[in-house]
C-alpha cells in the first residue's frame, strides 16, 4: 500500500516539498544544537525544560485522542465512526512520532539514549513513558495498517487484531496519564503537584485531538473524493464540546484549591502566569488569550445552531486547538519552573533556533501524517470506486 504515497497531484508534491524544506532547515539548526549544546535554546539552570518538552506534552494529548473514535466504534458499535477510525489512528501515529522526536531533541546526550534500555529503571516515570509511547505507536501502526489492508482487499480483518484494538483503548489513556505523572509526582514543584493534572491533561487531549481531526476531515473532504461524513464530524464536535467544557471546569477546580488555600508555593506559579510575579509576566497575555479562546469555543460548540454550521465549527475547532496549545505547549511547562524552587524569578523565552527545530519536528509529523492519510484515502477512494 505504501506505493500509493508516491502517486499524487502537483499540489500534493508541492506540499510535501515544502514540508521537506522546513524539515531540512530544522535539521540544520539541530546540527548546530548538537555541536554547541542545548545552550542555543532559551532554557536555563532554573527553567530546564522548555518548548520541546511542552510540545511533547501537548502532542501526547493529540495522540491519545484516537481513542475517542476507537472506543465508540468498537465498544459501543457506533457504526458511523468506522469510516474514519483509520484517520484517528494515523493521526496518533504521526503525533507519537513527534513526541518521541521532541524528547530526542531535548536530550543533552542523544547518542546515549539507549541507556534507557540498557539500564532499565522502573522507579523512573520516564522509563514507563518510553514503554507506553513506543507501545502506543506500535499498536496504532499495526492496527491501522491491518484494518486498512483488510478494507482494501474486501475481507474481514484478522481475528488477532481485535484484542490489540481493545488493549489500545486503555493504552491511550495510559500515555497521557504517565505523561502527567512525569510532572505531578515531583515534590518541590507546586504548580504540578496536583492529582487533577492527569485528568486535566486527558480532558484537554480529548478536546485538542478531535478538534484537529475535524479540521483534517474538512480539508480531506475539500481536497479528495472521500467524504468523512457529516454525522461523523458532528459526533466529533459533540466530543470536543464536552471535553473542552470539562477541561475548563478542571482548571477552575484547580484555581479554587490554589487561591482558597492560598498556599504560596502553589499560588505563585498561577500568579506568574496570569498576573505576573515580581514584575515578570511574559506569559500573561498568552494565558488570558488561551482562557478567552477556550471560553469562546465553549459558547460556539455548546449552542447547537453554531455547532451544526460547519464553517463556524471550523472556527471553533481552530479556537480549541489554539487555546489548548497555548495552555499546554506554552504555559504548562515553564509555568511550573517559574518561580524556581529557591523562589527566584527567571523567565523562559524560546530562542529562534529552538523554534526552528520545533517547526522541523512539526513538519516531520505532518509529513508522516500526509503520507498516511494519502494512503488511507486513496484506498478508500478505490474501494468506493469498485462498489459503485
Amino acid at each position, binding site marked *: 500500500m505504501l506505493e500509493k504515497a508516491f502517486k499524487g497531484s502537483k499540489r500534493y508534491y508541492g506540499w510535501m516539498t515544502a514540508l521537506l524544506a522546513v524539515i531540512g532547515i530544522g535539521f540544520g539548526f539541530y546540527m548546530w544544537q548538537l555541536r554547541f549544546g542545548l545552550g542555543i535554546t532559551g532554557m536555563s539552570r532554573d527553567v530546564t525544560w522548555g518548548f520541546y518538552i511542552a510540545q511533547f506534552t501537548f502532542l501526547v494529548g493529540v495522540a491519545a485522542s484516537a481513542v475517542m473514535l476507537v472506543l465508540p466504534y468498537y465498544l459501543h458499535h457506533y457504526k458511523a465512526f468506522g469510516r474514519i477510525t483509520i484517520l484517528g489512528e494515523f493521526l496518533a501515529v504521526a503525533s507519537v512520532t513527534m513526541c518521541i522526536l521532541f524528547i530526542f531533541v531535548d536530550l543533552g546526550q*542523544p547518542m546515549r539514549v539507549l541507556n534507557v*534500555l540498557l539500564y532499565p529503571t522502573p522507579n523512573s516515570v520516564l522509563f514507563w513513558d518510553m514503554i507506553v509511547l513506543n507501545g502506543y505507536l506500535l499498536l496504532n501502526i499495526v492496527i491501522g495498517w491491518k484494518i486498512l489492508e483488510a478494507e482494501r482487499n474486501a475481507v474481514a480483518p484478522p481475528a488477532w487484531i481485535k484484542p490489540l484494538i481493545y488493549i489500545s483503548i486503555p493504552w491511550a489513556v495510559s500515555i497521557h496519564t504517565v505523561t502527567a505523572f512525569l510532572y505531578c509526582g515531583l515534590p*518541590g514543584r507546586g504548580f504540578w503537584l496536583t492529582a487533577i493534572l492527569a485528568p486535566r491533561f486527558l480532558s484537554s487531549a480529548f478536546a485538542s485531538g478531535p478538534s484537529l481531526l475535524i479540521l483534517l476531515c474538512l480539508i480531506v473532504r475539500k481536497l479528495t473524493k472521500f467524504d468523512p461524513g457529516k454525522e461523523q464530524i458532528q459526533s466529533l464536535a459533540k466530543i470536543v464540546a464536552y471535553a473542552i467544557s470539562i477541561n475548563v471546569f478542571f482548571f477552575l477546580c484547580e484555581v479554587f484549591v490554589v487561591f482558597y488555600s492560598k498556599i504560596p508555593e502553589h499560588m505563585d506559579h498561577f500568579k506568574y502566569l496570569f498576573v505576573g510575579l515580581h514584575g515578570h509576566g511574559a506569559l500573561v497575555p498568552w494565558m488570558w488569550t488561551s482562557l478567552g479562546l477556550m471560553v469562546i469555543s465553549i459558547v460556539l460548540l455548546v449552542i447547537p445552531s453554531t455547532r451544526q454550521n460547519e464553517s463556524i465549527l471550523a472556527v471553533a475547532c481552530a479556537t480549541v486547538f489554539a487555546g489548548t496549545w497555548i495552555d499546554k505547549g506554552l504555559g504548562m511547562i515553564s509555568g511550573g519552573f517559574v518561580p524556581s524552587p529557591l523562589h527566584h524569578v527567571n523567565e523562559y523565552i524560546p530562542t529562534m533556533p529552538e523554534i526552528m527545530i520545533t517547526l522541523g519536528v512539526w513538519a516531520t509529523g505532518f509529513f508522516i501524517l500526509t503520507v498516511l492519510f494519502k494512503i488511507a484515502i486513496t484506498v478508500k477512494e478505490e474501494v468506493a470506486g469498485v462498489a459503485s
Partner: protein
Amino acid sequence: MKKSRRSFLQIAGVSALGLGLKPVADLVAAPAEHGEAPAERVLKNEAALKAKQWAMVIDTRMFESAADLEPIIEACHKIHNVPSIDHPRHEIKWIWEEEFKHAFPTQELRFLPERIEHLPFLVLCNHCEDPPCVRACPTKATFKREDGIVLMDFHRCIGCRFCMAACPYGSRSFNFRDPRPFIKETNLKFPTRMKGVVEKCNFCAERLAVGQMPACVEASNGALTFGDLEDPESDVRKLLSENFTIRRKQALGTGPAVYYII
C-alpha cells in the same frame, strides 16, 4: 516472492524490537540470579573514611559576610573543575550563597534579626536520605551510595534533566555548552565534564575515598562540620544534640543531610 519478502521484513522488524527490549525483559524475568553476590573485585582503601549516612552541619553564626564564604566556594569549584561561565542561563555551581528567604523560602519570616536578613547562606546538594532525583533518573546515572552520598555518573547521564525538575533545592546544574574552555586551571585528578550532562556537589566522595575531609569543610575554619549521622559519637551528632538546627524544606520529607545552625 513478494509475499515472502514482506513476511521477512515483518519478522525482521519484530526481532529487532525484541533485541531492543531484551534488557527490559531480563529485569523482569531474572532477578533470582542476583542472589549470590559475586566475589568482590574492587578493594576498598583502608584509609577511606566510612559512614552510614554522611551529613554536614553548617554553623552560620561563624559567618558575617560573603567574603567569609568565598574561599569555601572557591576551594570546591577549583578542585572539581567547575567552570565559571558568566552567562546567567549557562551557569554551573556546586556550592553557592543565597539569602535566607531564598535558601529557606518556605520558612520566610517578616521580621528577621538583622544579622540573618542579609547574611549569605551556603547552599549545596543536600544528599537527601530519600532523594527525589534518584527516583526520577531513567538510567540510574544518579544514585545513592551505601554511605548516603548521592552521586552522578557523568558518562551514563543522557541529559534529560528529569533530576533537575525533581530536585526541590535547585542543587543541580546542566552543561548547556562545553564547560572546558571556562575552567581556569584544570585539576587533573578530577574529571572535567562534557556538554549535555548534569552535575552537582558530590560531598567530595573522591576525597573521602583517600581519607580526606571534603574541600569545603577544610576551607571553612571550623564553620562546616562533616560526619556520620548514624554514629552517636560523631562530631555532627554532637553539634545536633547541643544546637537547634533547621534543614531546607523539611516538610517535603526528602530528609536533607545538610543542617544549619542559625
